[in-house]
């Protein structure tokens, strides 16, 4: 009986055994779930941080197996672990432009495993030969849509093999055309171009299934004028929306939101700028909202397209710009705004690192996102905006999409190149985390743009004839609207001057399609300027003019040559590059010249040149400008292939391949042997052949003479930032060595000379020109100075010893190339016994001297929160054309010492200015020797602060690269 009584309990105990749990599913093995770049990606920024992310925190174990393999084998890597142990961050300074690499992700055991990810680095340097289209929406132009599908809503992103001449990039037959084959019409679109990138954003969605052609004509050309071979890319956009796009609202991910596990790096929503000039700076993306459209979920059979309509903005915290990361820069960007210049877009798709039939899950097979867009970057602070404003085209991010707790979170990662302070491109790693939030509301822009500044400034006569005019707005404007009459350039007669309207973030460049004439007046009309939201600013206009160029017969010469010195050299030896021809035999010898692997050759002329006279040699010993690889004796071995970038007053040469460390090279500028301009010689716009031995004379008959020959050795790439600073504004625009009527008389870039006394034979001296510093009781005569100094800003240095012997905790060394400055003639009368001898100094040449054992260095230091440059210059002063009847002067290789100091500032146009002033009085004694052993001197001084040199960086956007 007891058995029956216990029956229920027995049953209760026995039955659960029949309900045994099913065995758990086999867990998916740990592995790679994400990489940046993605497989097949082109145009990957060189300094990009590569990422490999795993499903589980096994990155540390996998690090040893991580490889980046290029044509020369494994590349040196710096690998670190991020993202709670899930992600490997890979940096390398050894990647080369335009090269395809394989990224092999490491396995958990440290071995290399999995299929490699192939990617090709960005090559944005000019190259010899015609430009070619190398990517069309991320794909091979011969196979459009294979790497990244083209949808009816896509912005068409083009990448060329080298930068294009922006004057030639337009939507027009023969240049660029998006052509609808069915209707035989061009498709209206907004065009953006910057360097190697072009973006074409159709005004209306394309017709899915229809055939379109991207027609590229030979009006497109590179910066050296080499034309593109006409080509047609035919493509058919896919139907991604089915006509039913689904509006989705995303906002930036904030702490406390779901999907924290999504984070694949150590910090969400950041932009990390890394550059030796400013160190490592991080900006945080602030809360913001983006409205997007998701495509039809069925249209692509799985992947879902999405679009981010243009005009939307995100804001990030300002960049703390500290030079070398430690010295105050004096620049405040304020908040940094990022605006979608074109419709961004991409797709969400299954994880390609897992078998194709793997159902997505957040950890082991997360959905992947590829996103491409074009950005305007600009800043809230007016000066910061002028410095920072730029368009960043062709941004390609990759990311992970994770759905959880009712929200879709997307983390996209990648890199872009930010033009930094106008002097360099800084790799910027970006992490953008968004999360769906139907309740979020995007800010509505109701404020019209306003014009903050222009370069050149309104009302000035400083518009360089071969440069564009920069208009600095406080927000990006609708470029298409500006092009269709919104902004016009009129000449003095009211005729419209053809211009290209370029968008550079919140800045617009009006670039005349042909060089302007000198001494002309222009009117800039802003008739219909609005932002993308349609907010229009009030119409306005202003006048600006190109400077007058007084005719001169003084031959062209060089103000700066990099690498090298601005003169024909003699007495070179194995240990020195020689000295300037025409100088004293005892002059310092220049140290051997070197050029870093990635540097370009630069030559700055002192007056406009005849562009057609500059011919790059195609074979050894040919051309008026020869850049050759040579042996130790200087015999040409081969011509260095590259691009010649000719401007009105300067020329640059970019080699196709980096200079090879230890190899010998030679730059030769041919001047011709006589005073006539012949073929194969470099001539000025005045038709006179160049003169490269200014110390032998600067007058009209000085043309021709010895070539300028610079031998240099290739050197390894450095992290220094090369900056071409030139005096500005310039008084002696025509380089005649004289200040002529019509030429400006700026308060800077001049040296005020005061007569302090005489001695010996000379008993009186006075200037015969006007007093250029009326504020002083004395009479001063001004020499107006023109020059250019290539300088390299190095990495921070601690415990710096300054020229006066003092020390500062930190400085930035500035290595200055030993160039020359030319100054205008000063007229004076000096005499004896009551007899005055009038004379003019003629053009003076002030050569910078190097130390025998080290380069000339200046220092940027912190002076009470102001970045200040300090430099002690040893100079040779020459007045080659100064002559006095029956007497000799000693202004030949006359040694001067001057200590200069001045603040580094950023102007409202974004350019850097270093305003150097002499900190102490500079004595200049002009000795005069007469026959019969009679001698005397005129004792001049440059009062403290009266040597005023404003060195200005080049216009960053208005000037062609």
């Amino acid at each position, binding site marked *: 009986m007891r058995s*029956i009584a216990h029956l229920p309990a027995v*049953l209760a105990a026995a039955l659960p055994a*029949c309900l045994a749990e099913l065995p758990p599913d086999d867990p998916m093995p740990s592995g790679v779930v994400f990489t940046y770049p993605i497989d097949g990606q082109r145009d990957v920024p060189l300094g990009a941080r590569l990422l490999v992310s795993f499903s589980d925190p096994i990155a540390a174990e996998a690090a040893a197996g991580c490889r980046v393999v290029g044509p020369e084998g494994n590349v040196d890597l710096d690998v670190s672990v991020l993202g709670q142990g899930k992600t490997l961050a890979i940096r390398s300074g050894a990647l080369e432009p335009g090269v395809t690499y394989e990224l092999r992700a490491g396995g958990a055991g440290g071995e290399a495993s999995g299929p490699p990810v192939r990617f090709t680095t960005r090559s944005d340097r000019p190259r010899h030969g015609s430009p070619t289209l190398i990517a069309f929406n991320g794909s091979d132009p011969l196979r459009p849509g294979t790497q990244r599908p083209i949808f009816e809503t896509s912005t068409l992103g083009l990448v060329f093999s080298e930068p294009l001449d922006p004057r030639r990039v337009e939507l027009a037959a023969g240049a660029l055309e998006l052509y609808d084959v069915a209707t035989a019409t061009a498709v209206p679109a907004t065009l953006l171009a910057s360097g190697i990138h072009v973006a074409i954003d159709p005004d209306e969605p394309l017709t899915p299934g229809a055939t379109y052609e991207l027609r590229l004509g030979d009006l497109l050309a590179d910066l050296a004028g080499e034309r593109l071979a006409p080509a047609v890319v035919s493509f058919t956009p896919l139907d991604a929306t089915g006509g039913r796009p689904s509006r989705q609202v995303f906002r930036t991910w904030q702490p406390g939101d779901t999907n924290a596990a999504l984070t694949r790096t150590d910090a969400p929503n950041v932009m990390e700028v890394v550059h030796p000039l400013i160190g490592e700076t991080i900006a945080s993306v602030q809360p913001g909202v983006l409205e997007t459209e998701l495509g039809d979920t069925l249209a692509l059979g799985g992947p879902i397209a999405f679009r981010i309509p243009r005009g939307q903005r995100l804001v990030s915290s300002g960049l703390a710009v500290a030079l070398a990361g430690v010295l105050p820069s004096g620049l405040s960007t304020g908040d940094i705004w990022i605006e979608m210049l074109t419709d961004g877009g991409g797709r969400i798709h299954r994880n390609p690192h897992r078998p194709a039939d793997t159902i997505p*899950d957040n950890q082991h097979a997360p959905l992947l996102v590829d996103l491409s867009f074009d950005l305007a970057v600009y800043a809230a602070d007016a000066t910061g905006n002028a410095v920072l404003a730029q368009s960043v085209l062709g941004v390609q991010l990759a990311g992970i999409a994770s759905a959880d707790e009712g929200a879709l979170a997307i983390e996209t990662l990648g890199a872009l190149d930010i033009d930094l302070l106008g002097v360099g491109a800084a790799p910027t790693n970006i992490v953008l985390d968004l999360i769906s939030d139907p309740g979020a509301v995007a800010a509505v822009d109701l404020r019209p743009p306003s014009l903050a500044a222009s370069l050149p400034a309104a009302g000035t006569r400083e518009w360089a004839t071969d440069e564009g005019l920069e208009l600095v707005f406080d927000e990006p404007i609708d470029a298409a609207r500006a092009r269709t009459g919104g902004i016009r350039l009129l000449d003095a007669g009211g005729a419209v001057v053809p211009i290209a309207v370029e968008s550079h973030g919140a800045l617009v460049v009006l670039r005349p399609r042909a060089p302007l004439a000198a001494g002309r007046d222009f009117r800039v009309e802003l008739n219909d300027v609005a932002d993308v939201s349609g907010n229009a600013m009030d119409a306005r206009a202003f006048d600006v003019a190109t400077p007058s160029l007084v005719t001169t017969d003084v031959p062209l010469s060089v103000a700066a040559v990099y690498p090298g010195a601005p003169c024909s050299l003699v007495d070179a030896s194995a240990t020195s590059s020689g000295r300037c021809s025409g100088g004293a035999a005892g002059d310092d010898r220049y140290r051997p010249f070197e050029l870093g692997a990635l540097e370009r050759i630069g030559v700055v002329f002192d007056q406009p040149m005849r562009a057609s006279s500059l011919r790059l040699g195609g074979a050894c010993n040919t051309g008026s400008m020869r850049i050759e690889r040579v042996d130790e004796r200087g015999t040409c071995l081969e011509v260095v292939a590259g691009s010649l970038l000719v401007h009105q007053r300067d020329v640059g040469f970019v080699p196709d391949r980096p200079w090879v460390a230890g190899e010998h090279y030679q730059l030769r500028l041919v001047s011709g042997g006589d005073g006539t301009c012949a073929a194969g010689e470099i001539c000025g716009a005045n038709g006179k052949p160049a003169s490269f031995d200014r110390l032998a004379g600067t007058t009209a008959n000085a043309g021709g003479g010895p070539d300028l020959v610079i031998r240099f050795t290739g050197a390894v790439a450095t992290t220094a930032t090369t900056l071409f600073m030139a005096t500005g504004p310039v008084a002696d625009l025509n380089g005649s060595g004289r200040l002529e009527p019509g030429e400006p008389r700026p308060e800077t870039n001049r040296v005020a000379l005061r007569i302090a006394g005489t001695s010996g034979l000379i008993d009186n001296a006075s200037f015969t020109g006007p007093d250029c510093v009326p504020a002083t009781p004395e009479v001063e005569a001004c020499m107006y100075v023109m020059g250019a100094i290539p300088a390299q800003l190095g990495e921070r240095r601690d415990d710096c010893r300054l020229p006066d012997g003092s020390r500062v905790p930190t400085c930035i060394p500035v290595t200055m190339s030993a160039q020359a400055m030319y100054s205008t003639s000063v007229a004076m009368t000096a005499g004896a016994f009551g007899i005055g001898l009038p004379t003019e100094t003629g053009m003076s040449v002030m050569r910078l001297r190097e130390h025998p054992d080290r380069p000339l260095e200046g220092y940027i230091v912190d002076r009470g929160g102001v970045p200040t440059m300090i430099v002690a210059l040893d100079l040779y002063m020459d007045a080659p054309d100064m002559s006095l009847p029956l007497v000799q002067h000693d202004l030949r290789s006359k040694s001067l010492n001057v200590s200069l100091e001045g603040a580094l500032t950023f102007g409202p146009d974004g350019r850097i200015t270093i305003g150097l002033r002499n900190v102490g009085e500079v004595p200049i004694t002009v000795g005069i020797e007469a026959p019969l052993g009679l001698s005397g001197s005129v004792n001049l001084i440059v009062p403290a602060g009266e040597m005023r040199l404003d060195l200005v960086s080049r216009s960053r956007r208005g000037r062609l690269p």
Partner: protein
Amino acid sequence: MTKLTRLVFLAATLLASTAQAEPGLTYERLYARAGILHMSPQSDSREIVLAGVDGPASLAVMAGPVAGSGVALDPATIPAVIVGYVLPVWNDRLSLETVLSTPLHVTFRATGTLADMSIAPTALGIPTGVPALGSELGEAEAAPPIVTAVYRLGRLGPVIPYAGAGLNVLLTYNARATNPILTEVDEPRFHIDPSLGLVLQTGADVALWRRVHLRADFKYIAFMKAHATVENLRVRTPSIPLFESAEVGSATMDLWVNPLIVQLGIGVDL
């Protein structure tokens, strides 16, 4: 389990053969009434509660109660035997009874919005293509051991009315989801916790001939709440092939079963 049931029945029979009836009511110690058992659940369910809704499914489904949803059990009729043992107390008026039967096949039906509407109609506002589940939900075999104490109220001629009370445990096994939408992608795990109920019983034996009796028995099982869980729910998302399917997590159902059991049988006192 059929073997188990037969074993139990055999054991009861053997035990009954040793028993002696109480003279007062002419019962033997052991008795059995074989017949038909009809169980009619008086189902009253709470809303189905989804849990563990992670990943893509969370875009379409929120964890928590599904508004308007419900679950019900279908009635069932099976052959069953009441086996009783008369305790030698209170003049043999008190006995202990249990019910032996073939396993009870329990069918769970979806009701309300669970049956009529898609549980994941849209994700981020985009139709998923997940259809309504329909009424079919799942099924299980149940062994509901019942033990009651029965007190005979007296004899009214051939009729011996009684009343009783006891306990019931609902034990299920072989539970499985049968909904075609829920089983299209994967095999969900269906689990029903054992649940206890208070049995209220009444009825009457009618003496037919010598020790042969007709039994009409009514039981109401109160406070029986079935807690069922369906895990590994994964549904196909035909309108979003990117996902192909979405793992909804698990669903829990709390169901007041409270069945009314009517049993008619005929048997003998042994």
